[in-house]
């Protein structure tokens, strides 16, 4: 009972995950700043942002469904924090595991995006609505290629259970045997996190702040925290699947940070894509290339 509560509230779920999320957010912002030849934010910046937002007034606009408006950020963060339990954080075996938890995890990870879209549609403003449309369009674009890319390692290991997949990979670096899957998974993750070049849903030069335009204070803080947590989860998942499965925590952390560096470089190199270019990129190239890789994997079995 006590150990269950510790798992949920402190490690690996709950508090430690929130802190890790903020640390990764800081690192992402700092790397981006250094790549742009700036000094960048101080190490406690995300913490100060979150505390400030939580201490601010929360404005609920007139004409929205109050329950949904207040509840959606909580559901979004809860979804991301639930997914923590099935993911091999820091190279340790996941806290919970059952057959088919890969599908459940991917579903829980997309809950945040779904909640963002619903929040935008519920807010009533025209910018929120446009942002929500773009968020959901992007969700349908990257979700299938992302899942298909994660299923490459699953095919190799012959299981849909994350614990069994990481065990089945057994230290092999699938990055070299499935480079397409790796790239699609990582770039799908960037779309999931709405990072540049896939930040059309929250493009501040076009639609103010996208789906979260009307959110202030607590709701905004919870959405940001959910996104931070999801960044850690996504990077961990890709590192575990493509960079040699479970290993000791230090080596695993280094691999995760390497992926973060790659993401930061892509962010600073690329300009924002239009929403139709984003959809085209994933469906025309991402999905088809992963499909090709599946066929190769499948064919390789019979050889």
């Amino acid at each position: 009972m006590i150990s269950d509560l510790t798992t949920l509230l402190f490690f690996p779920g709950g508090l430690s995950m929130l802190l890790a999320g903020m640390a990764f957010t800081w690192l992402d912002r700092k790397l981006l700043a250094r790549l742009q030849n700036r000094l960048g934010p101080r190490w406690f910046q995300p913490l100060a942002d979150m505390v400030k937002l939580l201490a601010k007034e929360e404005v609920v606009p007139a004409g929205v469904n109050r329950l949904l408006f207040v509840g959606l950020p909580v559901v979004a963060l809860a979804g991301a924090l639930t997914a923590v339990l099935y993911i091999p954080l820091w190279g340790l075996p996941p806290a919970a595991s059952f057959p088919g938890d890969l599908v459940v995890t991917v579903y829980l990870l997309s809950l945040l995006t779904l909640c963002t879209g619903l929040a935008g549609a519920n807010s009533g403003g025209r910018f929120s609505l446009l942002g929500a449309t773009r968020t959901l369009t992007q969700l349908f674009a990257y979700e299938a290629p992302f899942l298909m890319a994660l299923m490459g390692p699953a095919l190799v290991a012959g299981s849909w259970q994350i614990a069994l997949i990481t065990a089945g990979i057994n230290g092999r670096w699938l990055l070299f045997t499935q480079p397409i899957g790796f790239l699609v998974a990582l770039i799908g993750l960037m779309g999931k996190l709405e990072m540049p070049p896939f930040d059309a849903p929250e493009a501040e030069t076009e639609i103010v702040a996208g789906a979260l335009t009307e959110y202030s204070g607590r709701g905004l803080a919870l959405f940001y925290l959910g996104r931070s947590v999801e960044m850690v989860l996504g990077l961990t998942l890709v590192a575990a699947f493509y960079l040699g499965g479970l290993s000791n925590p230090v080596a695993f952390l280094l691999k995760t940070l390497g992926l973060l560096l790659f993401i930061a470089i892509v962010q600073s190199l690329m300009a924002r894509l239009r929403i139709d270019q984003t959809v085209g990129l994933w469906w025309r190239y991402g999905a088809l290339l992963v499909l090709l890789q599946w066929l190769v994997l499948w064919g390789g079995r019979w050889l």
Partner: protein
Amino acid sequence: MTLNLAQSWQDALDKVRTWARLNSPWLIHYNSGSCNGCDIEILATLTPRYDVERLGVKLQGSPRHADVLICTGPVTRQSKDRLRRIYEQMPEPKFVIAVGSCAISGGAFQGCYNVIGHIDEVIPVDVYVPGCPPRPEAIIDGVVKLLQKIGKQ
């Protein structure tokens, strides 16, 4: 005794809140009729050369996300309602910085038929940054003065 304990908790919480506020001022920029000189200087302040992100400053698109309204120019009759509405859309606690001579006094546009006057006549202002236009260093100094003022409150 219990009352004292509650008071000390309250003080500690207030300290944390003030610390967070001081370290993460998010700006929103509004031009209520300026000649764009001050706006260009504000944009120059946000470029990598001055890198205000090291102070925690971020430019936000939505007034709902922002803490500090940084406005330029005199208030024209057309933009008066918009300025007030943006100010009212911001969640508490909120602060205003008026940048440039026109924002302080109406400047060159004083007495024009379509100009109401300075920012102060429409919304309360916390910090004034003089100059026509003020240099980026002066704008950063204005933000720091505002933070000092928040810290004292």
